[in-house]
């Protein structure tokens, strides 16, 4: 563990991306990404919750007794989620319908509690909110990536716009549960191959730098 404190915002957005690196908050990631629009909405809703809950928890972090820590965090998160729930309902019923039962489930989204415990419980309010924003947007980014694959292949559209003309044969699978798994697998494979290539380059460079103890000279 390197202790260089990275910018919490960038950290969540990329380095510790919740979807692709931490593999957290998988339920909405897989369930709400069969269209880009839903993915973005869900991502933003989660980001909103994260910012609120991180901020609130950071604010009271010094007063929380250890035994009721989790219960307190959960209560605060649940409040933020309920508020979000009403907010979404008030803004657009159709978006609310698409997100279905998954808005209440943001409460149980591992990502939110993980950030509460892992960051907001230890850091001041502003960085915590930054972290919430970074993680939330990183999450939204992940969802959008996934939603793109699924919508483009599964329906031939992007944000509802037809890409391939009316004769496109949609790959229904991508809108179904297996498609969610596969799309995420595709993204992870892409990132893994990118990382592998980078690693290989770095290792090659490191090999040049380290002094190899010479084999018994002949």
């Amino acid at each position: 563990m390197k202790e260089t404190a990275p910018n919490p915002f960038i950290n969540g957005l990329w380095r510790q991306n919740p979807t692709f690196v931490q593999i957290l908050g998988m339920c909405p990631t897989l369930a709400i990404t069969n269209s880009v629009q839903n993915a973005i909405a869900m991502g933003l809703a989660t980001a909103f919750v994260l910012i609120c809950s991180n901020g609130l928890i950071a604010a009271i972090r010094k007063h929380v007794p250890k035994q009721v820590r989790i219960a307190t965090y959960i209560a605060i998160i649940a409040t933020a989620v309920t508020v979000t729930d009403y907010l979404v309902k008030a803004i657009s019923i159709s978006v609310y319908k698409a997100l279905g039962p998954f808005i209440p489930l943001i409460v149980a989204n591992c990502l939110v509690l993980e950030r509460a415990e892992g960051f907001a419980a230890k850091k001041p309010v502003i960085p915590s909110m930054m972290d919430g924003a970074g993680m939330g947007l990183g999450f939204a980014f992940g969802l959008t990536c996934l939603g793109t694959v699924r919508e483009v292949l599964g329906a031939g559209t992007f944000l509802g716009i037809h890409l391939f003309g009316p004769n496109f044969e949609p790959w229904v699978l991508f809108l179904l549960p297996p498609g969610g798994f596969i799309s995420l697998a595709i993204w992870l494979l892409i990132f893994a191959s990118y990382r592998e290539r980078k690693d290989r380059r770095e290792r090659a460079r490191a090999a040049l730098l380290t002094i190899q103890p010479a084999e018994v000279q002949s």
Partner: protein
Amino acid sequence: MNESLGHIFVDAFLINNFVLCVFLGMCSFLGLSSKVSTAWRMGVSVIFVITVSAILSYGTNLILVAFHAEYLRLITYIVIIAATVQLTEMFIKKKSPELFRELGIYLPLITTNCAVLAVPLFQTARGYNLLQSTVFALAASGGYCMAMVLLALVRERTELSDVPSLARGTALTLVLASILSMAFMGFAGMGGGG
């Protein structure tokens, strides 16, 4: 709707399996399924927590309805779950330190397992009575446990082979999960028309 108990069970256990068809409890499904023993223990803990909290939430919901305070559902459910989990954790820690050593790290994760929260929410939305709720909770959590164990079994098998380094880890797990989920599509429509 007046669904029969058998139907509720088959539906939540197979057809709309929480994990493979509805995407609930994903994080632990992907994260804790590398060993069968772990998956099984997590599955059983979840069955326990879900069933207890489903019954408790059923009662709570009655109170909330009586006070016309339905908007407090979410927060009360989750707080109940968190408390159930924490009590379970303390209890196991006291009574069986070995089991705690095995389960310790997973127990807190149950709080943030969407499947656990989804059960009370769904049962309320569908208007199940107490018996239906209990069956539903058992079926949903049993389905979770089954999916966990199935995935763990196939993952353990892949451990004996030479998976390309590229796919090792979550990507392979996801591919396995997607094939399992395709296999579960065969159950779709069971109990439906036809």
